[in-house]
């Protein structure tokens, strides 16, 4: 018998235990990113919410500018600006209830501030006085996370634990497009879907991972498509449309809170500044691309919508800008004070009880500091 004859004899029935799983169609993202501003749907959005989003966007942009300026004055070691991405940052903060948790990446200072964190506390990581300048439990904001995507499984675990305890808490985790290539992204999505954990993943696809464009990061049709393989819905949204991001995230949060499990949201946006103040973006992208995106600015989009509909006038715009200036002036003033640091803190929080080895090292540092103080005293 030839191979072809054998093949002819083979009846293509499915393997014995095979059952088609859920129809992937409802999980698939739409072909185009969801938009609200400039469409008829915008009329349905609560004007109060739109105004609130606007004020936060304006404040957020000013915050980014101020923080970047602080790097030039040497007050911050580094600042990864989210200018251009404010709609994602602000919506992420505003869709959550107080009891919910936000899991930011290192770029998401603004989301933490929009959630109510003191702007100075939000910057200690980047200033260098302490890694996390706040108590995560106080605002339910996990520490700003530097290793990419590692905060995602934390969000899943926390959401899962909350559900086990019977609390209707949702975790929202932020990650960049580059971060979706990390193993932890995969493991987190998989755990979330298997456990049906109340967690929402928001990918801010801002086009680049430092210098690497999305096309070199993934061959997937979109990052939202990745959801389907895990068995969770993937949603695609215009990341510069604050109303759309807010709507899609709200839906996802509601779905999660109601026991519907996780959602992966991809927000298509753009990083207007360089990766950080230390990066040279002209090496990997041209001005025309940046200009195209400038015409799609999140603040301009919302401002246009609001003014067209008579919900915002020049006074309103001035008011928003003034509030932002006040925030910036306060931030500047407080950041220009040198933080007071206690070197003995180095040993205070390694373990609940310092080990005998740490106690010895603590004694050494204390002696060094005493000697330093004494020699300064005699020098004076």
């Amino acid at each position: 018998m030839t191979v072809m004859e054998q093949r002819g004899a083979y009846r293509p029935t499915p393997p014995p235990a095979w059952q088609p799983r859920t129809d992937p169609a409802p999980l698939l993202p739409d072909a185009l990113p969801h938009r609200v501003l400039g469409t008829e749907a915008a009329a349905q959005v609560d004007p109060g919410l739109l105004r609130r989003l606007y004020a936060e966007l304006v404040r957020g942009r000013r915050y980014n500018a101020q923080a970047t300026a602080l790097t030039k004055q040497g007050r911050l070691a580094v600042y990864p600006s989210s200018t251009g991405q404010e709609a994602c940052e602000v919506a992420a903060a505003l869709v959550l209830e107080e009891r919910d948790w936000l899991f930011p990446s290192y770029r998401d200072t603004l989301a933490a501030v929009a959630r109510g964190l003191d702007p100075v506390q939000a910057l200690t990581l980047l200033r260098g006085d302490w890694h996390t300048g706040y108590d995560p439990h106080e605002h339910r904001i996990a520490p700003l996370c530097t290793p990419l995507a590692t905060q995602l499984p934390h969000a899943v675990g926390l959401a899962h634990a909350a559900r086990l305890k019977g609390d209707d808490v949702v975790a929202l985790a932020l990650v960049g497009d580059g971060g979706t290539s990390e193993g932890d992204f995969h493991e987190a999505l998989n755990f979330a879907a298997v456990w049906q954990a109340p967690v929402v993943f928001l990918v801010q696809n801002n086009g680049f991972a430092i210098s690497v464009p999305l096309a070199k990061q993934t061959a997937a049709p979109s990052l939202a498509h990745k959801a389907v393989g895990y068995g969770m819905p993937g949603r695609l949204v215009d990341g510069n449309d604050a109303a759309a991001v807010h709507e899609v995230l709200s839906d996802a949060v509601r779905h999660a809170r109601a026991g519907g499990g996780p959602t992966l949201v991809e927000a298509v946006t753009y990083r207007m500044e360089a990766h950080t103040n230390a990066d040279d973006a002209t090496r990997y992208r041209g001005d025309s691309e940046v200009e195209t995106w400038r015409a799609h600015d999140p603040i301009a989009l919302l401002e246009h919508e609001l003014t067209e509909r008579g919900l915002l006038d020049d006074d309103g715009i001035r008011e928003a800008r003034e509030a932002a200036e006040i925030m910036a002036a306060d931030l500047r003033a407080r950041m220009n004070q040198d933080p007071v640091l206690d070197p003995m803190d180095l040993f205070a929080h390694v373990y609940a009880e310092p080990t005998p080895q740490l106690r010895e090292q603590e004694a050494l540092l204390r002696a060094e500091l005493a000697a330093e103080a004494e020699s300064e005293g005699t020098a004076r």
Partner: protein
Amino acid sequence: MTTVALKPATMAQALTRALRDAMAADPTVHVMGEDVGTLGGVFRVTDGLAKEFGEDRCTDTPLAEAGILGTAVGMAMYGLRPVVEMQFDAFAYPAFEQLISHVARMRNRTRGAMPLPITIRVPYGGGIGGVEHHSDSSEAYYMATPGLHVVTPATVADAYGLLRAAIASDDPVVFLEPKRLYWSKDSWNPDEPTAVDPIGRAVVRRPGRSATLITYGPSVPVCLEAAEAARAEGWDLEVVDLRSLVPFDDETVAASVRRTGRAVVVHEAGGYGGPGGEIAARVTERCFHHLEAPVLRVAGFDIPYPPPMLERHHLPGVDRILDAVGRLQWEADS
């Protein structure tokens, strides 16, 4: 005073008992890992826990070590006490990113606001004829990471007491289980398990006068056997079982070496960059004037863990320990 009947029990049984008692005592204790539920773990250490406490408290996770430890971090953030099982020593490596970048530092980076009471159980070490990646001794990696406690029992009673202490600890504990001792039996009172000293105390397993063997985990019984054998040569060896590698009990170790004046560190992990180098240095720094000879090390070879048919040549055995003890007669030789 009531006398209790001591029964033979295995280390695996004591560990199971510790998990069960911890879960019964504290509803926030959650066991999770690969195959820990219905199967009870590949070493059966979690046997019966899913049945008794439900699958929400003893959970079969997807097969992903970073995911297991990463989700445990989030669970601990929300007030649970996860006890995660890494199926074998070398399969914990995918979780190292979570371990080193988050588990070990969360308390520190948040100035104490977010401690992570996670116990990470890692069956480790050789001597069971395991194929590649089933016999590594990875303790040096853990020891080199500030923020982690690292403990390893050598007896049935310690397996119980140290695991209870680890789970009760507000800090992350890497709990190394010497898998070749899982089935070793001891007389133990399983009805009324005794608590042990808190994490961080070494014990003298066998008192002696002429030299100290400093060891831990799977090498403890080997050292005890060597100490018996050494009697024929006129050596009266003291055996110190460290039990805890972090924190390190300098006091007990130094006191022993000051008494005996000679020391050999014995472990399965490779010698170069291994725990023995650290221990020898600490002993030398503290006991230099009491030492009659350099502190010697008997360790595994500096090779990737060998195939099972060759592992007996790699693992430190009685003869190699006795050789080292012989070399402690420094004055006579030099």
